[in-house]
C-alpha cells in the first residue's frame, strides 16, 4: 500500500521539466541561425558536454561530422524551411570526446514574427544498434544482387551454348524429314522437330529474359501501322484457330490513326504471346483482340489492347503468380498444354519498358481477358511527306507500274501485299529467286522487291541473273534484308541491286524508296556513287579478277591425265560435282554453326583441292572455321566470310564447268599421241 502511494506521489510530482530532461531521447532547440538555445539532460549526457559549453555557443550543425554539415546546409535546412518539418534524417553526431554515434533526427519549425525569429525543435534518437542491422542488411542486399547478376550471366551463357547444338538438332531433323521415310520414322522425326522447336523457343525466351533483366533491351522508335501489325497477327494465328474450331477476330477503333511511332517488334511479341496463350487455353468459343483509342493529342496517342477468350480461365488465387517466371496456373497445365511459363513474364517486362503493365480479369470456366495500355508518339509529319510525294503520282503512272515481290516468308508476303494493295499498286509474288527469274522473263516489272535470303536461289544470285538477261527495260531491284546495309553493300553493287530496305520496315520506309524509284523510272537503273565508293568497287573488281585467276589451276590435272582430253573432261566434271557436294556440306555446317563440319570438309576435299590447286578456298574455309569456333565473333564478319566462301565455291564450280578443253589440250596435241 505504502509503495503504491509513494509511486503515485512520485508521478504527481514529476514536472514537465523532469520529463523533458529525463526523456529517453534527446531534445534540442535552435534558432534560425542554428544556435542551440536549449537541450535536455539526456542529450547532454550522450554528448559529454556541460550545459554552458553548448547553450548560445554551439550551432546544431557543429554537432555533425563535416559531411553531415554540408548535408545540413544543402539538404536538411532547405527541406525544413520549405516544408516546415523534416523527419527521420540520419546524421552522425560528434561527442565531446570526438567519437560519434548515428542518430535519427526529427525537426519541426515554429514560425516567429519574422523568419529570423523562427525556432526549430528537434528530437534525437540514438540508432547505433539499428544502424548495425541496417549495415548488415545492406551488405546482404549487395550480396544478393551480385548473386542474381551472376545467375543471370550464367543463364545467358548457358542458353547461348544450348542454342548452338540445338540448331544442329533442328537442322538435321529437317533434313531427315526430307528423306524417304516410312510412316513410323516420319512420326518420330515430327516429334523430334516439334520437341527441338519447343526447346529452341524456351531457350530464346530465356535469353530474352536475361537480356531484360540485365536491362540490355531498349525500345525502338519506328513508325508502323497498328492495323497492319494486327492483320498480320490474325493471319499468323488464323490457321491454328481454324484447326481448333475457335473463332479469332480483331476489332480496332476506326479513329486510330494509320501510323504511330514506337516499337512494333515488342508490341508484336506481347500480342503474339497473349493470343498464343488464349489459343492454348481455349477449346471452344472465340478469341477477340480489341484495340481501343483512349486518348490522342498532337504528340501522343494512348491505346488499350485487350485479348479476350472463352477459355478455361484462371483461378483467383493464381492470378498474381501467372506473371512469375516458370509459373502456370497449375502443374497439370504444363503437362497438358505445354509452354514454358516464361511468355507472360517476358510480356510483362516488355510492357514495363513502356511504363505499362498487363492487367488480367478471369473467371474459371468462362474465360480470361488480358489488357494493357501503351502510349505511342503520333507519327510525325516529316515522314508523312514521303507518302505525299507518292500520293501525288499520276494515276496514269500507277496504271503502268508493276512490282514483283520476291520473298519466301508467307507472313512477309502478306504484309507487303497489304501495303501494295492499299497503295493500289499492281504486283506479283515469287517464292524464290528461280521463280523470280521466270516471272521477269515473261512480264515487264518496274520494281522488284527482293528478299536476300531465300532457298533455291538467293537474292544476290537472282539479281545477277536478272541483270544478265540484259532486258530492254531494266527493273529497279530493291533488296529487303535484316542484315545491315554496310555488310552487303559491295555485294549489292556487284549484282546490280539499286537500293536496300532494312527489315523490319514500316510502310513509310517502303513508301519512300518505292515512290522514289517509281518516279525516277525512265532513268533506271542509275545509281550515283561517290568517288570513294567508286574507288572501293574498283578495288573490289581488281580483287575479283585477281582471285578468279587464282581460284584454281588445271595444269596439274592436264599433266596427270597425260593430255588425254576425254580423261581430263571426266576428271574436271567429277571435280565440279564434288565441289557442288562440298558447297552443300559447307552450307549445312555454317547453317548449324558447326566448325567441326568445316574441318571435316577441309579434310574431305584435300585431294580435289590438291589436283586443281584451289588453295584460296581452303584459306577461306579455315577462316570460316576459326570464326565459327570463336563464340564471340561478330556475326556480320562471319556472314561476310561465309558469303565470300560461297562465291569462291561458285567461281570454282562455274569455272570447272565452263572449261574449254580444246584450249587446255589443243587438238593437234592429241593427234600426236
Amino acid at each position, binding site marked *: 500500500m505504502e509503495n503504491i502511494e509513494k509511486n503515485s506521489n512520485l508521478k504527481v510530482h514529476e514536472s514537465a521539466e523532469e520529463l523533458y530532461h529525463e526523456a529517453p531521447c534527446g531534445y534540442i532547440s535552435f534558432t534560425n541561425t542554428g544556435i542551440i538555445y536549449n537541450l535536455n539532460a539526456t542529450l547532454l549526457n550522450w554528448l559529454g558536454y556541460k550545459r554552458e559549453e553548448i547553450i548560445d555557443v554551439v550551432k546544431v550543425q557543429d554537432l555533425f561530422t563535416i559531411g553531415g554539415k*554540408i548535408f545540413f546546409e*544543402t539538404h536538411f535546412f532547405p527541406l525544413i524551411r520549405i516544408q516546415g518539418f523534416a523527419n*527521420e*534524417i540520419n546524421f552522425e553526431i560528434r561527442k565531446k570526446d570526438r567519437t560519434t554515434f548515428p542518430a535519427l533526427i526529427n525537426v519541426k519549425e515554429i514560425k516567429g514574427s519574422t*523568419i529570423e525569429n523562427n525556432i526549430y525543435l528537434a528530437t534525437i534518437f540514438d540508432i547505433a544498434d539499428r544502424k548495425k542491422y541496417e549495415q548488415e542488411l545492406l551488405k546482404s542486399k549487395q550480396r544478393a544482387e551480385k548473386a542474381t547478376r551472376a545467375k543471370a550471366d550464367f543463364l545467358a551463357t548457358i542458353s547461348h551454348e544450348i542454342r548452338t547444338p540445338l540448331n544442329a538438332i533442328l537442322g538435321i531433323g529437317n533434313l531427315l524429314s526430307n528423306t524417304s521415310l516410312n510412316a513410323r520414322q516420319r512420326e518420330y522425326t515430327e516429334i523430334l522437330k516439334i520437341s527441338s522447336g519447343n526447346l529452341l523457343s524456351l531457350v530464346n525466351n530465356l535469353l530474352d529474359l536475361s537480356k531484360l533483366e540485365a536491362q540490355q533491351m531498349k525500345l525502338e522508335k519506328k513508325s508502323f501501322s497498328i492495323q497492319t501489325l494486327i492483320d498480320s497477327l490474325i493471319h499468323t494465328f488464323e490457321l491454328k484457330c481454324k484447326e481448333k474450331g475457335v473463332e479469332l477476330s480483331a476489332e480496332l477503333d476506326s479513329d486510330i490513326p494509320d501510323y504511330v511511332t514506337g516499337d512494333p517488334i515488342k508490341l508484336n511479341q506481347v500480342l503474339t504471346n497473349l493470343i498464343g496463350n488464349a489459343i492454348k487455353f481455349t477449346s471452344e468459343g472465340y478469341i477477340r483482340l480489341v484495340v481501343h483509342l483512349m486518348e490522342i493529342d498532337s504528340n501522343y496517342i494512348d491505346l488499350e489492347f485487350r485479348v479476350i477468350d472463352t477459355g478455361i480461365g484462371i483461378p483467383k488465387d493464381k492470378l498474381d503468380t501467372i506473371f512469375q517466371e516458370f509459373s502456370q496456373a497449375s502443374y497439370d497445365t504444363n503437362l497438358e498444354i505445354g509452354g514454358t511459363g516464361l511468355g507472360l513474364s517476358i510480356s510483362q517486362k516488355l510492357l514495363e519498358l513502356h511504363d505499362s503493365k498487363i492487367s488480367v480479369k478471369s473467371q474459371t470456366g468462362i474465360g480470361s481477358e488480358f489488357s494493357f495500355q501503351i502510349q505511342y508518339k503520333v507519327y510525325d509529319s516529316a515522314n508523312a511527306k514521303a507518302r505525299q510525294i507518292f500520293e501525288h503520282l499520276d494515276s496514269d503512272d500507277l496504271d503502268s507500274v508493276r512490282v514483283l515481290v520476291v520473298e519466301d516468308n508467307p507472313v512477309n508476303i502478306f504484309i507487303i501485299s497489304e501495303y501494295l494493295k492499299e497503295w493500289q499498286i499492281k504486283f506479283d509474288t515469287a517464292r524464290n529467286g528461280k521463280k523470280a527469274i521466270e516471272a521477269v522473263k515473261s512480264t515487264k516489272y518496274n520494281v522488284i522487291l527482293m528478299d536476300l535470303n531465300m532457298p533455291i536461289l538467293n537474292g544476290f544470285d537472282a539479281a545477277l541473273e536478272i541483270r544478265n538477261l540484259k532486258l530492254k527495260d531494266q527493273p529497279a531491284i530493291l533488296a529487303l534484308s535484316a542484315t545491315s546495309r554496310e555488310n552487303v553493300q559491295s555485294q549489292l553493287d556487284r549484282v546490280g541491286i539499286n537500293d536496300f530496305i532494312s527489315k523490319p520496315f514500316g510502310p513509310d520506309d517502303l513508301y519512300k524508296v518505292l515512290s522514289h524509284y517509281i518516279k525516277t523510272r525512265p532513268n533506271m537503273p542509275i545509281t550515283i556513287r561517290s568517288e570513294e565508293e567508286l574507288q572501293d568497287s574498283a578495288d573490289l573488281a581488281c580483287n575479283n579478277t585477281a582471285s578468279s585467276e587464282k581460284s584454281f589451276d588445271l595444269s596439274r590435272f592436264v599433266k596427270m591425265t597425260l593430255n588425254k582430253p576425254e580423261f581430263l573432261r571426266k576428271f574436271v566434271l567429277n571435280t565440279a560435282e564434288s565441289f557442288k557436294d562440298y558447297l552443300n556440306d559447307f552450307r549445312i555446317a555454317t547453317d548449324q554453326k558447326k566448325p567441326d563440319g568445316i574441318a571435316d570438309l577441309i579434310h574431305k576435299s584435300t585431294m580435289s583441292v590438291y589436283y586443281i590447286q584451289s588453295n584460296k578456298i581452303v584459306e577461306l574455309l579455315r577462316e570460316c572455321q576459326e570464326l565459327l569456333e570463336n563464340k564471340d565473333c561478330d556475326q556480320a564478319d562471319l556472314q561476310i566470310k561465309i558469303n565470300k566462301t560461297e562465291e569462291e565455291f561458285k567461281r570454282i564450280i562455274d569455272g570447272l564447268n565452263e572449261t574449254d578443253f580444246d584450249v587446255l589440250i589443243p587438238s593437234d596435241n592429241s593427234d600426236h599421241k
Partner: protein
Amino acid sequence: MSTPNNQEVLKRNNVSVKGKGNRPIIFAHGYGCDQNMWRYVFPAFLDDYKVILFDHVGAGNSEESYYNKEKYDSLQGYADDILEICHALDLKDVILVGHSVSAMIAVLAANSNPAIFSNIIMVGPSPCYINNNGYKGGFEQEDIEQLIEALESNYLGWASQMAPVIMGNEEKPELGEELTNSFCRTNPEIAKHFARVTFYGDNRDDLKKLKTPTLIIQCQQDVIAPLEVGEYVYNNTENSSFRIINATGHCPNLSAPEATIEAIKTYLEEAD
C-alpha cells in the same frame, strides 16, 4: 541524343515563367534542392520582371530521362541547359541569379554566350571547394567523401521513409504539388554524381574570363562558402561588386529572404 526542341527544353528543366515585367531574371537553384529554394525571394520580383524558375536536370520535377553521365560530368552541361532555356524563351538582357554551385554555372553560361546576359548575381559562390596550393576553399577531399557517405546513408533512411511523409502532407496544403514530388524523388545516383561534380570542380580560371557585371552576395557565416572564398571571387572577377548580408548559413534565400531581396534590388537599381 538529338538536341531537344524548345518545348522539350522547357519540360526537361520544369521551367516556369511568371511576372508582369519584361526584363528577364532567371533564378538558378544550387546543389541539394530545386526551384523551391526561391519561394520566398521570387515573389518580390513579379511586378517588375519576367521571372524564370527551373530545376536542374535530376532535381525537383525535371525530366530525369535527360540525365546522362557524360553531359553532366562537368558544370558546363548545366550551363548549356540554361543557354537552351534562354534560347527557348528567346530571352535577351538576362539577369541570372545563381545560388551556390549555380553561381559557377552562371559564370560558364555567361562565358559561353556573353551577349545575352546583362548581369550575374552570385549567392554564396565558391569557385573551388577543396583547399589546394595555398588556395583556401574550406574543405579537404575526405570531407567531400564524407558528404557522399552521408548522402548514401540518408537515402537509405530518407528516400524510402520521407516519401510517404511528404506525400501525405495534408496539414500544409499551401506547399502544393511541387513539393510532394520534389525532394523525395531525387535519384540518389544523380545526387551523388552532382555532389562530386559540384564539390570537386575548380572554376577559378573561368571566373577570370567573366566580363559580365556581377554582384557577389556573401553571408556572414557560411561553412560551404566562407567569407574568404567570397573575397577571392570578388578579387578575381572583373566588374564585380561585393555585398555581405546579415545572414548565416549557406541559404540566405531561405534563412534571410528579405536581406537577399534587398541586396539584389539595390544592386539592380544602381546598375541601371
